Structures are given as structure tokens and as C-alpha cells.
């Protein structure tokens, strides 16, 4: 009986370790996977639920004010947001940042699409984000259609990736 208990304890510990290792090595959410649902409370207090945007293309961008390459990308994303006038939803998730600096950054980059802090880093953990910037383009069915690690190279690249999804 004693031996069984010891082996069971060891097995449980190994199982936990295996789960932890698997999660650590999973990498980002892959193309074709269902995008994890989340609620983003924007800096202005408004709440955005990803599930509410089913049937629309959604661009989820993870950024931070301390990220050097994020700002030029934010400007391109803003241009894309203005082009689609709400037909495509853009959500900025501010990762491990401070509110004062984040707001100053948004103002400086003239960003108007909804942005909010990643409270308790729950959204970035759900998307298994490894750094910023990272962007997930979600198709109308709610599946991840494209994952961009690092910044987009240009405004045209963003449009090029979104256009085919609008016609599906």
C-alpha cells in the first residue's frame, strides 16, 4: 500500500511536469485554431468581447510602449483601421505595460482603434504570446488565419493579408 502511494505521488508529479513542459513548448496559437475568446477593457473603459465579432475579420495586435518596433507598426495598423471604417475590427492589447506611458504612446502614434491593457496577462497567455509585437488575424469563423511574429513590414502587407479574408 505504501509503495503504491509513493508511486502514485511520483506519477502525479511527473504528469504535472509533463503538462508544464508541453505548455512551455507549445509556441503560439497556430493558423486554423479557434482564436481564444477574451474580454478587453479599453483605456476609455469600454469592453470588447471577441465573441461579439463573429462574422467579422478581427486583427488582434499585442504591443507595449517600451517596444521600439511597435510604434511604426501601430501607425500602419491605424491606417488600415481607417481604410476599413469598422468593417474589420482592430483590437490593441497592451502587454506588460504602464498606463501613463501606454496612453502617451497611443496619443503620439495617433491611434484611434480600441486599445486596452492585458490585465493579469490573461489574453497574452491564452494566445501564448512570446513577445511584442505579435498580431493575430482572425477570420469570420473565429479561426486564426494568420500569425505575425514581429512587426508588419508595411501598411500594404496588412491589407494584403486582410483582403482575401473579407471575400471568404
Amino acid at each position, binding site marked *: 500500500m505504501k509503495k503504491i502511494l509513493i508511486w502514485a505521488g511520483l506519477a502525479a*508529479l511527473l504528469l504535472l511536469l509533463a503538462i508544464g513542459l508541453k505548455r512551455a513548448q507549445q509556441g503560439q496559437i497556430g493558423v486554423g485554431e479557434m482564436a481564444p475568446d477574451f474580454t478587453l477593457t479599453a483605456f476609455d473603459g469600454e469592453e470588447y468581447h471577441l465573441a461579439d465579432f463573429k462574422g467579422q475579420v478581427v486583427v488582434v495586435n499585442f504591443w*507595449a510602449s*517600451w517596444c521600439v518596433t511597435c510604434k511604426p507598426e501601430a501607425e500602419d495598423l491605424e491606417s488600415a483601421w481607417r481604410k476599413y471604417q469598422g468593417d474589420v475590427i482592430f483590437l490593441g492589447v497592451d502587454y*506588460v*505595460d*504602464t498606463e501613463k506611458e501606454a496612453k502617451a504612446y497611443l496619443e503620439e502614434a495617433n491611434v484611434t482603434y480600441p486599445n486596452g491593457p492585458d490585465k493579469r*496577462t490573461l489574453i497574452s497567455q491564452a494566445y501564448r504570446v512570446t513577445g511584442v509585437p505579435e498580431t493575430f488575424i482572425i477570420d469570420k469563423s473565429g479561426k486564426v488565419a494568420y500569425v505575425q511574429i514581429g512587426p508588419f513590414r508595411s501598411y500594404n502587407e496588412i491589407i494584403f493579408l486582410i483582403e482575401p479574408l473579407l471575400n471568404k
Partner: protein
Amino acid sequence: MKKFIKQIHVILLSIMFLSLAFPHVVTAQDPTPSDDDVNDIAEQLYCPVCENIPLDACATQACVQWRGIIRDKLAEGWSEDEIKQYFVDQYGDRVLAEPPLRGLNWLVYIVPPAAFLAGAYMLYRNFRTPKAANGKQGTGHKQDASSKAKTEPEIDNYIAKLEEELRNR
């Protein structure tokens, strides 16, 4: 003399009324937290961006901003616990150097001492078992000795044969 005292009273009363007329300019205490005050809290926090580097030793922009928040909160009169809770609310439990005792975090506190105790027990058992093992080894030595005893005549025979052969030559 009385007149003089009366004059003094008048002057003092005038000063009192004048002082009431002008509001006191009271400068609020503005405790500027020192770097040590900030680092006392920062060393208990870890920024998720810079893994395994405590906040007080981290030089990235994100960590500089975090230390700025600690300084601001201290200046506002927040306590150490309130500031730590603020960081937990904003960025999650993983920012704490010492995980709170809930959920799977218990394993962090239980597994290492349990593993240490298990190791100590195994060592204890290993130190005890050599007696039995020595006993076995002892019989082994006896066996070796007996086998050695058995082989001695064989060696004697071999030497005798060798000497005989040499003599024949």
C-alpha cells in the same frame, strides 16, 4: 507700567488677528521615495518580459517604467502590500518572487522539502544496508578464501610439475 502692559497686549492681539487674516501657507510633506525604498519592493517583483531577473536589477525600459510606478505609489502613501497587490492585479501572480499559497503554487512549497526528505530517507537507508551487504560480502570473502585455499594445492602441483620439467631438461 500698566499702560506699557496694555500696549503690549494690543500689539500681541493685533499680531494674532493679522495672522488669522492671512491664511497659513502649509506646504504638504512631499516624501520623495529613495531608490532604496523603491528597490526594497522591486526586489520582490519580477517583470514577465525579463524572466529570472528581479525588478531591482533589470535595466530594460519596461522595468524602468515599473520602478517608476513603485516610486509614484510610494509617494502617494501606498503600503508595500498595496503596491504588490496592484502589480498582481495588473500583471498576475507570476510577477511575485514568492508565489501566493493557492492552487498549484502549493507544489512550489511542498515538493522541494518533500524531495529533500525523500533523499535524506534514501541516504539513511543506504547507510543502513551496507551492514547487510557487508555481511554478504563477508561470506563472499570467506568463499574467496576457501576458493583460494582450494587453489593453493593446485598451484603447488603446478610449481612441482614445472620444476620437474626443468630438471628433465
